[in-house]
């Protein structure tokens, strides 16, 4: 995850409390989505950014997961996401996200 984004996630967690922050990921690949999810839960796996060794344990979802999709206005989802949903390997992404959440999410 971009170092600047790591910093912002860390600041939001401090400002609002980690239990009040949900991170929504839009990565196009399961591996990339997993890495981003790991960063905001267990810490930066590349040991490069501000979240290195910081276990925020945040709730983290991919935008194509049912739980998030159901919260979004249908028209907006259709306009913003539906095309990408056709392109992505959603099952693979969901599997990866569930694995990371079950291991590291505290909220």
């Amino acid at each position, binding site marked *: 995850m971009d170092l*600047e984004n790591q910093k912002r996630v860390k600041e939001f967690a401090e400002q609002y409390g980690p239990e009040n922050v949900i991170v929504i990921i839009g990565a*196009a*690949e399961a*591996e*990339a989505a997993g*890495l981003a999810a790991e960063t905001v839960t267990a810490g930066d796996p*590349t*040991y*490069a950014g501000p979240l290195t060794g910081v276990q925020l344990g945040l709730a983290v979802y991919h935008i194509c997961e049912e739980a998030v999709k159901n919260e979004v206005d249908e028209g907006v989802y259709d*306009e*913003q*996401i*539906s*095309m*990408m949903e*056709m*392109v992505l390997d959603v099952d693979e992404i969901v599997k990866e996200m569930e694995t990371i959440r079950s291991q590291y999410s505290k909220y």
Partner: protein
Amino acid sequence: MNSVLKGSSFVLVHAPDMLIHGGTTQTTERIVNPDSEYLRKLPEHLRSFEEAVAYLPNQVYIGNKTPTDLAAAGDVWFDKPLQSASRFGSFGEIMPQDEFYLLLQTCDVFDLVMLDKDFVKETLPRFEKHPLVDAELLALVREGVDISEIEKAVNNEGAEGVYQNGKLIGCVKKAHDIDVNLNAEVIFENLISKASCALSLMHFIKTTGVEKSAIDLVLDCSEEAVGDMNQRGGGNLAKAAAESAGFVNASGADIRAFCAAPVHALIHAAALVASGTYENVVVAAGGSIAKLGMNAKDHVKKDMKALEDMVGGFAALISKNDGVSPEILSEFTGKHNVGTGSSPQAVITALVTEPLDKMGLKIADIDKYSVEMQNPDITKPAGAGDVPQANYKMIAALGVKRGELERAEINDFTAKHGMPGWAPTQGHIPSGVPYLGFARDDIMSGSIKRSMIVGKGSLFLGRMTNLFDGVSFILQANSGAGADAPDEQAGVSEHAVKRLIAESLRELARSMGAE
């Protein structure tokens, strides 16, 4: 009248030592984690020049192999070296690092590059034999200095070391005592961009046969900032490279728009020529040392070679309509506007379907789309996926949403209208332009009629806006009408006569074939 794509060139420079010393993944690691296992292991993962030449995607880049060859070779290429491969190709060449250092010196007009005299002596005989190196260029290579002088400059005077096979063989001196914009690292980076741009220009003259003196303007579309503390991005790398390439009648200007810059520059060039302001405009760029080895941590972790060891360059000539070369349809370009929005759907609509709608065409009416042609051999092991494939799927998915394609046809569409990526991950270098050489050949041979060239840029990296950027244009087979238009009022032009003769000959050939 539309302007045309008259020709292009593509060059690569093998840069394994520059990867170690100048790639930002490595320079960052040396600051953050100087004793890391990665830095220790990396030298074992560098490719030899022969390995870089035998690498199929590199051979496609310089025109010895085609995108079709690449698609036929499966989807992993680093483990399949070609048995016989040449460093020179129909579009350009792959230059070894040591020869490039001499070229770098010829592009340095401020005596900032110092090379070890033994290194110069050893490398010069090969450099002399290079088909594009003439006496004028050779005269710019200096004899070299004693290595102790270089060591002193690197250790005590803020010079940046230049290495070959891990050994210090030269340095680039700082150009100012205080100004960080002119420190040795920046000067080295800018000189590399300039020299690889100049090399592209030199090849381009060779491949097109156009006179150097006929070029009116060079637009540089790389991603380096050239300037000093009072004008950090002052620019005109274009004019600097044009000088090195000997384009005496050319002016120059830089166009910067991150990775979208080459397509922006081509649209500018096409309009400048179509309007009659200039007759011959070259769009060119050298490569980026900073991006070398960007994903090398993943490559090393997966026990692969560090494949991002190539500095890229290209040049393309946009000229007045000659009646034969592919036309750039200046009236039907696509662009991402400030208000377009950043969802992939909005982006693809703005770049792909809006210009098609204006022309009354459908998505499948473009025979080949050239998008961000990043080599997936490099990006997939780093978890960044297959970038061109993802782009093609997005275009196809938009086609499904528009009712032009069935969902089950997405894969067929991407295979037919797309290509695997072969360009090094040098930001602006993969961005739409790597196909230009093949596009011209494919359109002129009649195997395709239209191609869309799409460039995209990530503007947020500069922290001035969160906006995305992208532009596109269509290349189309020449209608044959353009070149004749100015003369038609005065009677039948020479071009028209030639075309009539050509058509009669073709007709004759067809009738003979039928018998």
